[in-house]
């Protein structure tokens, strides 16, 4: 079960990624979000070895390994100056909140835990909002993690939970996608001298 306060805290961490300036702070927020979810999942799975192991693997991947990888990329791709976003932080927060609330209103309640469903949809919406509103490649990669954390909340709330094989498949896919995104981020920085993806605008018809 994910209570209302935890759901709000998880969504607030997601919203934080929309507004914070520094990439390292955003990574820390996502790592904390993943850690909290991992602890909840391990707590839910206590007594079932398969569920606990799966939750442990997900926790290590999402709260430790992937944030560490992204921090490593940040250290090796120093920005000459902070990337100037297209919109002010407050505007970004309002737009992200609007997307989040719209999606929550649109998806009918299916999961038995109402707070969990809202939290899941909110995090998915915030992940998409991060990709749309932030220019740095690392932030967009963090968007994947926030969205996946939303799906993880939904999976935890599904009666019986998702089967271990699917959860492990999700973790594997996430690791591959974030590793590839990190490689892209480094390569984009090598080409442009910055991780600002808005400068990748060569392909137009």
């Amino acid at each position: 079960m994910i209570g209302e306060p935890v759901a709000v805290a998880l969504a607030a961490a997601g919203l934080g990624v929309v507004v914070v300036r520094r990439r390292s702070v955003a990574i820390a927020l996502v790592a904390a979000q993943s850690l909290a979810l991992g602890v909840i999942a391990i707590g839910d799975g206590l007594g079932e070895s398969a569920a606990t192991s799966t939750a442990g693997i997900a926790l290590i991947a999402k709260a430790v390994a992937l944030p560490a990888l992204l921090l490593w990329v940040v250290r090796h791709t120093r920005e000459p100056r902070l990337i100037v976003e297209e919109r002010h932080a407050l505007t970004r927060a309002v737009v992200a909140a609007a997307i989040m609330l719209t999606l929550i209103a649109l998806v009918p309640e299916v999961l038995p835990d109402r707070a969990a469903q809202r939290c899941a949809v909110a995090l998915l919406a915030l992940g998409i909002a991060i990709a749309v509103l932030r220019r740095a490649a690392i932030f967009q990669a963090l968007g994947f993690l926030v969205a996946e954390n939303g799906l993880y909340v939904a999976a935890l709330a599904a009666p019986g939970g998702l089967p271990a094989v699917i959860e492990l498949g999700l973790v594997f896919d996430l690791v591959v996608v974030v590793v590839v995104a990190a490689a892209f981020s480094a390569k984009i920085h090598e080409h442009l001298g910055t991780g600002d993806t808005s400068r990748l605008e060569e392909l137009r018809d």
Partner: protein
Amino acid sequence: MIEAVIIAVLALPLATAFGALLARTPRSADAINVAGALATATGALGLAVAGIARADEPAHGGWYVLDAGGGVFLAVIAVIGLLSALASPLQLAGQGRGLVPAARARGLYYLAFHAFWATLLAVPLVDNLALAWVLIEATTGGSALLVAFSGKRSALEAGWKYLVLTTFGLAVALLGIILLYTLAGSGGDLAALDWRSIAAAAPQLPETGALAAFVLIIAGLATKVGWAPVHNWLPDAHSEAPPAVSALLSAALLPSVAFVAWRVLVTLGPALDPGAGSAVFLGFGLLSLALAVPFLWRALPWKRLLAYSSLEHMGVLALGIGFATPLATAGVVAHVAGHALAKSLGFYAATPLLRHVPDANRQPIRGLAAAGPASATAVGVSLGALAALPPSPLFVSELLILLGGLSAGETAVTIIAAALLALGFLGLAHALIEGLVGEPRPHRWRPGRSARQITRLTVVCTAGMLVVTVLACLLPGSEPVELLMRGVG
């Protein structure tokens, strides 16, 4: 026995990938690639034939299903994977530093290529929606690297856009899958998302929840199929990827994801208002056609033109799936096979084009007949077939789909689709004439290995398309089509 063959077919490209990665010389990496591809395609085609031949008695296992529909898509993925593997060595010749250092480029290319192919081969075989999702998402990482393989800034942009858009799209689809899993009262049992279980549970599902799950799943998968309006990555990725990868993306990846979407419609459709599921597909189909046609009229670089043609043809597939009549279903089957051969030939023709015409990646092709006859023939056959000029299999398949639309009572949609297809035909016909007999651009054509290879590929693809044309005429009313109409397995 079948399970062992399936596992072998999926393991072979993975073994090939690591074999090529560890090869000591480029020549041995190429040889491992070709040998592995031949073995993989032989096994996959054997499975496909078994699936189609035993259409009335599909093979089921704990995680797989080998039925007629899966057999058709498996055959297409096998053939296009083989042709792309055969076309890869020439494309890699002279590859300098790209995304990865030149010394490791070939091995890493084969690693990503064969891993991507292995995952694609598994998609039509898995008997579970969640597993199919995991596989589709697993194609993203490797294929994104392949899209950006040249390491050029434009390729990085295309690869990044592809990675971001399809990953978020698939995340939306996964939310739909989890909602469906909850609605089905799974209690933690993976089997609740088997195709037959979904079909059995569908009539009892609450309509609103089922509709939400359906829309999320299909909208999410649509980003990977490249259906408009969530297609933005498609023109960039197809135009920037190496030609053999573009062929695999357009001719194998997009249809195989469309196949999963089709299975969702067939199995979950009974939970929805009559016609609601089909309406979603018809909407994607018409929008894709309407957005593609204006670009088919523009003077675009060759691969970019092919990319917009993919958008058009995925729209045609969506219409055929949405009409859901026996004629339209026969049309979809023929369209998948015909489009795959015509489109991949077009992409293979890009290898000599890019080598001999310096600005081929930025400018439309012109006057090719006078410059490079082998490439001109490939371009002419490909574009003629994609424009649905008889005897192209796409002429028969589009006709079947439109007739299927009329028999479904979707007269307005059919008329609009026919008008858009006619406009698309005119655009491609103009590109064909300009490309072959227009004022030639500066070039440095020399007869050589690339000309010989494209000639061989043209012969193979043309023969394949003629076979598909004949089969397309025999498909309506056939047993595999009847079984496809009934569902999965």
